[in-house]
């Protein structure tokens, strides 16, 4: 039986201790909401395959030693390496605290960055409530009307747990005003031998005709856990393109929820997850077509080896009246070991007319015919497998919306697959 909730007293104390920080009122509201529901459990349909018992345990032990009391030095060299590799304007968060020494100045005429302060932070999700109640430096980013920001905004979550269990609760709001365009890179990194759990909630709101290109990169320690949610609301004719890459984490759960609230909006979201050893990686996506015409298209791919277990659940709901909606889903999985597992589920709910929806899911091994073909060209079986596995990954990596990152993403994939050794 899983422990599903934390001690209300310990939580209340932790939230009260943070009352000197921003958003004191919102925190209390969020805490009450969280306490009503607690952590999701496998009894919730959306959490059927992902058990947060370990995350609850880490949170409990973290609360017991008074949050924020155990200072963790940032892994500065890792942060600097990322900053020198990826050209972006970086906001660096260390265990939920904004590190101003390592962060770049984002304030300009085009972008406002402010602390989240008593905004309405509730979004009908207990984990979002938890992050709202316990966040340290919650940040709001606003891109001004018609501003075109070429250089990506980098959100780097560099977490560390060396001595005691640590928990990161983070909250980011991103608002693109009408006609603006921006690019965001969300990078998750963690290190240290102690337990760590990160819970990050991101809200995106686009004005009419705005365009957002977004890449999420998760490279946490393989003994750490995270839950991450991005809720986006797309207004008229706005475009969001998203790509998520999951390489790390003992347990990683990502929720991507896109609300098509404006006509002629378009959402394209793709992702790749590579599970090995005993990793558990869960990607849940949901797109709500509330108005038509509009288009959503997604493709997720997974490569699983060892005893890893992955989940892909893609839900598309075309609401009544959202005529002329077009929703496409695809999920392809490569199982490299007989002990690995994928739980793939496309879900379509259609309540409108003149709708074009499609979904396709495949699970399989490497194509034997392709392997033989490569061998007749003189390639070793191990090289042939390596090439085919990378090709499988590259095909979705190349859909990521920030082309400057393709090389790096492919390199990270290559490195991870090489670590897995002879299996791939």
């Amino acid at each position, binding site marked *: 039986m899983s422990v599903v909730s934390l001690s209300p007293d310990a939580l209340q104390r932790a939230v009260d201790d943070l009352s000197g920080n921003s958003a004191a009122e919102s925190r209390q509201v969020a805490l009450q909401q969280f306490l009503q529901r607690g952590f999701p459990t496998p009894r919730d349909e959306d959490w059927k395959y992902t058990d947060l018992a370990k995350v609850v345990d880490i949170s409990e032990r973290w609360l017991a030693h008074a949050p924020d009391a155990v200072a963790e030095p940032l892994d500065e060299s890792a942060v600097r390496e990322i900053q020198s590799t990826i050209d972006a304007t970086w906001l660096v968060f260390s265990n939920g605290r904004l590190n101003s020494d390592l962060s770049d100045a984002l304030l300009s005429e085009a972008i406002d960055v402010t602390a989240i302060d008593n905004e309405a932070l509730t979004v009908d999700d207990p984990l979002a409530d938890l992050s709202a109640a316990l966040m340290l430096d919650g940040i709001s980013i606003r891109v001004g009307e018609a501003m075109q920001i070429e250089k990506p905004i980098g959100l780097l979550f560099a977490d560390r747990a060396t001595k005691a269990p640590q928990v990161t609760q983070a909250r980011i709001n991103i608002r693109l005003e009408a006609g603006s365009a921006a690019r965001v890179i969300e990078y998750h990194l963690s290190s240290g031998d102690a337990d760590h759990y990160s819970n990050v909630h991101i809200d995106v709101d686009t004005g009419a005709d705005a365009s957002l290109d977004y890449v999420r990169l998760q490279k946490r320690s393989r003994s750490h856990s995270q839950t991450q949610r991005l809720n986006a609301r797309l207004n008229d004719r706005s475009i969001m393109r998203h790509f998520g890459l999951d390489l790390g984490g003992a347990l990683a759960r990502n929720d991507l929820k896109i609300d098509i609230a404006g006509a002629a909006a378009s959402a394209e979201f793709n992702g790749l997850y590579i599970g090995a050893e005993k990793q558990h990686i869960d990607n849940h996506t949901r797109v709500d077509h509330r108005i038509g015409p509009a288009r959503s298209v997604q493709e997720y791919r997974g490569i699983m080896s060892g005893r890893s277990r992955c989940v892909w659940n893609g839900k598309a709901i075309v609401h009544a009246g959202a005529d002329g909606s077009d929703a496409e889903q695809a999920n392809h999985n490569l199982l490299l070991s007989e002990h690995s597992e994928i739980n793939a589920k496309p879900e379509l709910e259609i309540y409108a007319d003149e709708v074009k929806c499609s979904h396709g899911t495949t699970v399989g091994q490497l*194509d034997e*015919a*392709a392997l*033989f*073909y*490569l*061998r*007749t*060209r*003189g*390639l*070793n*079986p191990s*090289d042939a497998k390596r*090439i*085919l596995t*990378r*090709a*499988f*990954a*590259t*095909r979705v990596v190349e859909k990521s919306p920030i082309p400057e990152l393709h090389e790096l993403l492919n390199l990270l994939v290559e490195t991870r697959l090489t670590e897995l050794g002879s299996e791939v």
Partner: protein
Amino acid sequence: MLEISNLNARTGDTDILHGLSLSVNKGEVHAIMGPNGSGKSTLAQVVAGHDAYEVTDGSVLFNGNNLLDLEPEERARDGIFLGFQYPVEIPGVNNAYLLKAAVNARRAHQGLEEIDAFEFLKLAREKMALLGMDPKFLNRGVNEGFSGGEKKRNEILQMAMLEPTLAILDETDSGLDIDALKAVAEGVNALRSPERAIILVTHYQRLLDYIVPDFVHVLSEGRIVRSGDKSLALELEEKGYEWVREAASA
């Protein structure tokens, strides 16, 4: 160069080759003809080393060595090339990348250094021009979205780059229009050399108007029932495969 004696092979529970013998010397072009199901493609796959086929009897020697002991990639590096009847599409693997990897695998086996990138491109473009291929095919996924003719040209391009000592071209003419057929034939003819042997596996005589063979063999029910020169192909065209079957059972 290639010495096949009394070859028997099966896939699953089905026996396909029943005592096939064939001798191919360097510099020769052999055509292997036969009706559907006679074992033509099986012969090509067995020589290339496909593990779906089990050799139950007989031997295959390549330059005096037992070919059947070798893995498909070892056979390729030794100089055997199979042009596929249905070339496999491999999306995400760049055509140039595969060509270069294949060339380098063969070169490493020959004790040569890896081919220089510029030299490789120059060579590839030359061969492509000869085959009437657009250089942009180099940067596409292997056979990805290629038409039937483009796939077959791509096979011949690989052959031209790899310079095998023995090339087996399995139904290279199938699905080609006359222009593609001429381009492919021209590519193959350019590779005829006193040092190289070519085996053409084909159902129709048409290809042999463009690539004139030194020998023609007719396969029926898993063995060669008739051998001759190019006139045999014409005779076959005229009389049909029924003639061979009758001759075989006679």
